[in-house]
Every structure is written in C-alpha cells, then in structure tokens.
C-alpha cells in the first residue's frame, strides 16, 4: 500500500466511525453498475527498488549521441546548483502561490524571474511562464489580436522561418477562434519575402511575427519588420532564444510589441522534449491582455515588501469564459531553474555562453562546408545553428551518423522542401573543436561513400528550387 499511511486497524476504526464495514460502502451513492470490485488491469506494483532497476535499465539503454542538433532544444551546460536548489521540497512540492503568505519564496523568485526576462528582452513586463515556446507563440498571437483593437483583422502574418512546431501549435490553438496564420515565404537569403503577402494589402493583419534567431538559425534584421508593421498598423511579435540575447540586441530595442520564446536553454534539461518553459513579455500597455500568472510586488500590513499573484481578473479562475487564456498550471519549477540559471550567469556570463555558441557554430559550419557535397543554403548571418544543403537525401546520412554515435542535426527537408536536402546543424558552448572535428571527419567519410550505399538516390527535383 505505497504512500497510504493508515494501519489496517486505523482504517477499520475509521470505517466503523463512518458506520460502514468496508470501503465499498463509502461509494454508496455511486450506481452499483459502475462500481468495480476488481481494479483495472495494469501491471502489479513494485517496490521502489524494483522500479529503480527498470528505470535504470531503460535510461541506460537510451544512447547519448554527440549532439549537433538544435531546432528548439539545446544542450547547454546546466550548473549543478540549479537543480540542487530547485529540487528542494519547498520549491518542488509546493502549490501555486495563491496563499501569498505561505509562498513568499516562490513569489519573490517569480518576480525576480519576470524582471530578468524583461531585462533580457528589453520589454516592460514578462509573465510567470507558459507551457513552452510553441504555446507562448500561440498565446502571443491570440494576445496580439485582442490588443490590436484598431485592426479588424483576425490574421497574423508569420515568417516561414519561425519554428514549424510553433506554427503548428499556433494553428491548433488559434483555429478555434478562427484566427488565421498566413505565411510569408523565404527569399533566397532566408529573409521573408513580402511580395506574395503584402502586409498592407488585403484585409490587413493584426500582427506580424518573426523570430530572431529563427528556426533555421538565421538572425534577420527586424527593423524591416517593425517598419512594415507600423505601416500596416499591425503589432510586431518577435520570437527569441534567451541565450542568444546574451549577445544579440534585444527585441525590445527594435520595438517589438510582444516577444515569446522557448526557455529550455536556461538551465533546463532536454528531457526528450519537455517540460520546457514558455517565455512571454510585452510592452506595458498590453499588460491587461496578457495570459498567465503575474507576480507583483506590494507591501504587507506592516509596510514590508511582499509579493502576490496579481491582476488575476485576467485569469480563468476569476474571469472564466472571458479570461485571457485557459492556462492555469504553468511551468513554475522551470521558472525556478531558469531564474537560478540567469542569476548564476549574469549578463556577462550569458554573453560568454552566447559568444561561445556562436564561435563553435561558425567553426562547425566551416568544418562541414569544407566537405564536398555540403554547402550553406543561405549566405546570411546565423547565431548557433545553420542550415546546410547536402548533395543527397539527409535521412540516410543522419542514420549513418547515428550509427557512429553522432546526432548530426535535424533533417528539415520535409518541412522546407524548397531548400532541398537541408540539414539544420547546431553547436553550443558544449561542443569542443575535437568533437567538431570528429563530426566533420565522419561526415566526410560518409559523403565519400557511394551514394547508393546510403540507401537513396541523389536529390532530383525539390533540391534547388530557388
């Protein structure tokens, strides 16, 4: 009976106190036809040692590939202090801080987090987290439509270089409210091509959305976006990678209205894809349309600083069907980790991490493009990932690399057929020159092999449409 502290004797006494003789009688209001005597068929219980054995075996079977993949999840160094502190019961097992007096630790931390995210992005206010980068993007879109009262449009113009999963999630979450995402395609340099979708024409747009760096690693200059948004009376949504902001000019300085990002790089393990951390910040004038929780600073009865959840009238538990979002449980523990990460690194540390990522990625791209049959797709600046074009399909190459223990990147030719055999590669501060060399020499060896031996013919049609 794991985790039930009652002794048999106690349970019996309590039952008889209820005037019943067995547990089943406690369900006397439930129609008999619904009640099961036999529990559903799941595996029998194991003691902790037994589960530990299985979990260790399974975790041990997962291979640690040398990681050159990014695409929204990044291998960074995670300082040991982070999870030693975040795993403390007082952070790990406490509830949403509705009772402020019993949660000043989490509330103050959240207030610090909001400050850090605002500072990092150059925005006025950040919320206390959303689920992940993709849902943060979707919420940013929903929020923009609510904020842009001038515009009657329920359309958002989004750069095709924004993370495909972000666009898909946004599509799922927006379609209920019949908000449309319109894609701006890429030109040959990877920049948005506004020719087919002039923001100022048609029904107009409630917002324009772009990411810096974008999914393909590029670092577009978003002054052009700001200018177009102004002309179109649309809001500007900017997606960001928080680590890149150690080095890059923050979107707030470019005039973004709403920014959203994936917080995973801030001390959160890759974990097969989650839990991650949705970042959202905006100009203060849009505050009342923000989704999610907000921690605020106030004073207590004695005049001492105190922290509370505030502006709750935006939220589902107060406003119900008129709330800014249905989000309730968010990613509190990830906020804890990210806050500790940012405090440990500071501005200078984050700059160094970002600079190291950038340098390693430059080194990687140089090493790989020195291989015959590998070239850059775009001739544009990138942060810590870049998209390469191979002279053959990517999937079998990645499979062959995995055989050698290397996760060579992400095959983006499915999502972006217009790029040909496109491979998105990434290097963070974790990759050494020696590892980059190992990747390059393995890939060189593979690319030297007969194409057939990699299981597929060289690319034909979709390869070079630009």
């Amino acid at each position: 009976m794991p985790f039930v502290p009652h002794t048999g004797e106690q349970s019996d006494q309590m039952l008889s106190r209820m005037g019943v003789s067995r547990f089943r009688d406690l369900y006397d209001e439930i129609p008999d036809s619904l009640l099961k005597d036999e529990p559903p068929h799941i595996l029998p219980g194991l003691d902790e040692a037994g589960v530990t054995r299985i979990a260790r075996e399974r975790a041990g079977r997962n291979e640690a590939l040398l990681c050159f993949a990014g695409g929204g999840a990044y291998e960074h160094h995670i300082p040991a202090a982070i999870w030693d502190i975040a795993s403390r019961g007082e952070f790990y097992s406490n509830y949403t801080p509705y009772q402020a007096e019993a949660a000043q630790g989490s509330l103050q931390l959240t207030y610090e987090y909001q400050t850090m995210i605002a500072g990092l992005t150059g925005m006025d206010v950040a919320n206390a987290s959303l689920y992940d980068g993709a849902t943060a993007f979707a919420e940013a879109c929903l929020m923009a439509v609510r904020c842009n009262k001038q515009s009657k449009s329920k359309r958002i113009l989004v750069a095709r270089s924004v993370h495909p999963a972000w666009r898909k999630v946004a599509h799922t979450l927006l379609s209920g409210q019949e908000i449309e995402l319109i894609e701006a395609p890429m030109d040959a340099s990877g920049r948005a091509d506004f020719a087919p979708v002039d923001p100022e024409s048609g029904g107009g747009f409630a917002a324009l959305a772009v990411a810096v760096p974008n999914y393909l690693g590029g670092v577009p200059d978003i002054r052009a976006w700001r200018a177009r948004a102004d002309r179109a009376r649309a809001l500007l949504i900017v997606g960001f990678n928080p680590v890149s902001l150690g080095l890059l000019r923050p979107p707030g300085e470019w005039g973004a209205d709403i920014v959203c990002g994936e917080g995973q790089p801030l001390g959160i393990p890759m974990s097969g894809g989650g839990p991650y951390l949705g970042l959202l910040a905006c100009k203060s004038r849009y505050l009342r349309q923000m989704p999610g929780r907000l921690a605020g600073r106030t004073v207590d009865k004695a005049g001492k600083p105190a922290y509370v959840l505030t502006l709750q009238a935006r939220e589902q538990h107060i406003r119900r069907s008129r709330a800014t979002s249905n989000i309730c449980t968010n990613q509190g523990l990830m906020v804890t980790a990210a806050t500790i990460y940012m405090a440990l690194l500071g501005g200078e540390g984050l700059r160094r991490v970002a600079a190291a990522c950038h340098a390693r990625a430059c080194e990687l791209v140089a090493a790989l493009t020195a291989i015959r049959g590998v070239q850059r797709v775009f001739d544009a600046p990138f942060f810590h990932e870049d998209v390469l074009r191979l002279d053959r399909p990517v999937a079998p190459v990645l499979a062959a690399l995995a055989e050698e223990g290397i996760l060579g990147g992400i095959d983006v030719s499915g999502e972006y057929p217009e790029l040909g055999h496109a491979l998105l590669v990434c290097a963070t501060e974790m990759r050494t020159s020696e590892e980059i060399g190992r990747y390059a020499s393995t890939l060189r060896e593979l690319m030297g092999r007969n194409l057939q031996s990699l299981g597929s013919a060289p690319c034909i049609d979709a390869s070079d449409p630009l």
Partner: protein
Amino acid sequence: MGQHTRLIFDVSRPGRRAHAQMPAGEGAGPSVLPAELIRHRAAPLPEVSELDVVRHYTRLSQLNFSIDTNSYPLGSCTMKYNPRACHRLASLPGFLDVHPGAPEASYQGLLECLYELQDMLGAVTGMEAITLAPMAGAQGEFAGVAMFKAYHHAREDYGRDEIIVPDAAHGTNPATAAMCGLKVREIATGTNGDIELDALDQALGPRTAGIMLTNPSTLGVFERRILEISKRVHAAGGLLYYDGANLNALLGRVLPGDMGFDAVHLNLHKTFSTPHGGGGPGAGAVGVASALKPFLPVPYVEKAEGAYRWQTDSPHSIGRLAANGGNIGVLLRAWVYLRMLGREGLQRVADHAVLNANYLALRLAEEGFDLAYPERRAGHEFVISLKPLRDETGVTAADFAKAMLDEGFHAPTVYFPLLVPECLLIEPTETESPEALDALIDAMVRVRDAALSDPEAVRSAPHRMPIRRPDEVLAARKPDLAYAPALRRD
C-alpha cells in the same frame, strides 16, 4: 529562519561573477554577425557569486510551505505526497540527455515508459486511446473540446457551437470552451449537489457540442444520475467530457468510460502524484473513446514491430499542442508512481482518499462546522460553509484561511466552488495519516474558537508567517511586475 530576504538584484554588485559558470574561452573566432545586431551592453541580470545565488534561493525556499513540510488540505488540488523516487528516476541522465530530435531508436527505453504509461492510463480511464501531449489539465480540456468540434464537423454537423458547463465547474472549463470558439451554457447545480436535469434538458439541443463534467464535482459529491445525464446528452447528439482533476476519488473503483464519457483528461500532477512545483509543470494526458481516436492530438507513442515511435501522421488529428511530445519529465514521474502503485494499489488510493475526507467531514460536523451538503456522502473532498461564523463574528473564510497558516497548515481552498457562501473546500488526500487529520481538526477548532473569542486576531492573521497580509489592492492598482532599478536603461 531568516525572515525577509532582499532581492537578488540588491545582492548584485557590478563586476561580480560566478566564475565557474563562465565558459573559459569567450568564444573568439570568426563571427558572421553584423555589429548592429549585437547588444550594446550586457543584459541587466544580477551580478553575483555562486555562493550569493545558493544562499539567496535556499533562503527564499525556506519561506514556502510545501507538501514536504506541511499538510495541504487544499480542495480540488490533490496535494499528496510526491514520492522522491519519481524525481530521482526521472532525473537519470539517460532520460534527461535525450534531444527531442534524436532518432527514436536511440531512446527506446524512454518511449517504452511512455507507452506503458499510456496503457495504464487507458486502463484506469476505460478509454480506447491516450495522448500524453497536453502539458496541463487546461490543455487536456482544450484537446477534448477541440476533438468534440472536429468530431461533429467530420460528420458535417456544423451547428454545434455550445458547451454545457455546470456552475460548479472549474474556471478552466468555460475558459477552454471559449478558446475553442464555443459558447458556454452554464447550468445550475441543485441544492443537493447534483445537476438539475431540467436545466440540462433545457440546455440540450442541436447546438450542443457537449458537456464538461467533473465527477465527483468540485463540491466533492458524486453526480448520482451520471448515467441518465450521459444518455440524455448522447441522445441530443452531444458528447461528454470528463474533467479528471478529481479522479483521485474513484481511482480503480469507477472508470470514466463506464460513466459514458467520450473524452477524459487526467491531471497527472494530482491523482498521479507528480509535483506541483510552485505552479507547474503538470501534465494533462487525454483519453478518448474509439469514435474520437482519429482526432487525437499528435504525437502519441505507438508500438510497431517491437519498436516504439512517435505517431505524428494522423490526418484527422486536431494537431499539435506542444513543440515536442509534452512534459516528458512529468510523464516519467507519473510512470514511476504507477509502477510502484500497481494494480493492487489503485483502489487503495481512492478508498483512503474518500475515507479521509469522510472522516474529516464527520468529525468537523461533530465539532459544529456546517457541511454544505450534510446529506451527501463526501467524495475525496467536501465543502463547509463559514457563513454562520462570519455572520456572528465578521471572520470570513479568507480570514479563517490565513489563521490556518499560523497553525502550520496550508489553508483549504476558499471561495471555490462559487456556489457556496464563505466556503472552504477541503481535500485531505490519502497520504495524510489519521493523526494528521486529527491535528487539522484541532487546528480548525482552535481557529474557530479564536474567531469567537477574539475575532480581531483572526481577522488580522497571519501573525507568524514571513509576511503579514499583503496589500492586494495596491498590487493590482499599481502593478509592480518587474524591479525597476534592475531595468534602468541608462
């Protein structure tokens, strides 16, 4: 120990560093970044040492209540013990180091756990298929309602634009319906805690996409006519959504599928003991009956030819809810929990959760507290009303809650559900011992007696917490959401 702590920004000192965390090389090398894209000065983050950070956040943590330090009789939240094994095992490097873009063949061990979890959740809900993607209960609800819509649309039934929600429902239910672009029809709860069937009938019709129910409801009582409700909703062409936040009351005893529900979400951070983490992350796995399976959000885990893989290719799916496969780390914790619980443990959870709640309700009634539904059997939680006390002493439910903090107990849920005036919603969970329940009763009696003898003391509670009551009005009127001195852009 220390009471008040400064902000990390106050500890900051220009030029101070946690040196061990800085990459040694600054990443010299060729850059492809144009100068105008580079930030002018470092991000305005705190400049502190590693010891500063450890000390600051360790001390902050000590200002929190938590399951690991206090009882949390917090209704609708199922604050039960979060086994440490779940945390440890989900934190094995072999799980943490998996990149979501890695080939599935390289992390079969992880996928196997998720697949087993899907299986087990299917068994306890009586549902045909499960997706683990939703990252919290609210997202599970979204998935469910979106599937209802997709189902009707697939049958070319486009007129169903209403969702029926009882007035006792959790706020996420109407908020979700609205996010899905549906209208919310609220129906009243009867004085006995059951739904009014007449009201239901009035609401049902060709515009009914479905109904969202929590059962036991947030009043803690089981909807006795659930089969009848199910029949009527289905007869009207609607579907039934089960808000599984309260499954702890029924685990292993009643399957939502048997009650007639077509879709179910489970808050793994409640019934399945994953931690609340100060607000999250949770996980809101969703199960569906076979008719809805084509619409399930992607991805979910499939097994084919002895190998596990993410299924994303599902033409009728409502689509993606998360950038990746969901809150995997949370799912792993739930997997560990369920493997420890096992088949024979399922009913024991519900049995003792219900036993604890009924014991507490009975004892509190004996002590003179007013149960909101005295004629009803409590589920895993129950409501009491402090209206008589407030009328007599001016002490409100909120005051009472604050005084409970001074007693070392987290406050019960207050003012929810909205139907009962001055209510406390109390959920002890099965992991609190009878002794802990008795201590809770004693504390509640003490606070009540204090309210009678010295109401002012209770109305100004808490007195022994790190802060006194915060000024919430000021917080909302002049929102201070970021520390201005830290953001100075000079």
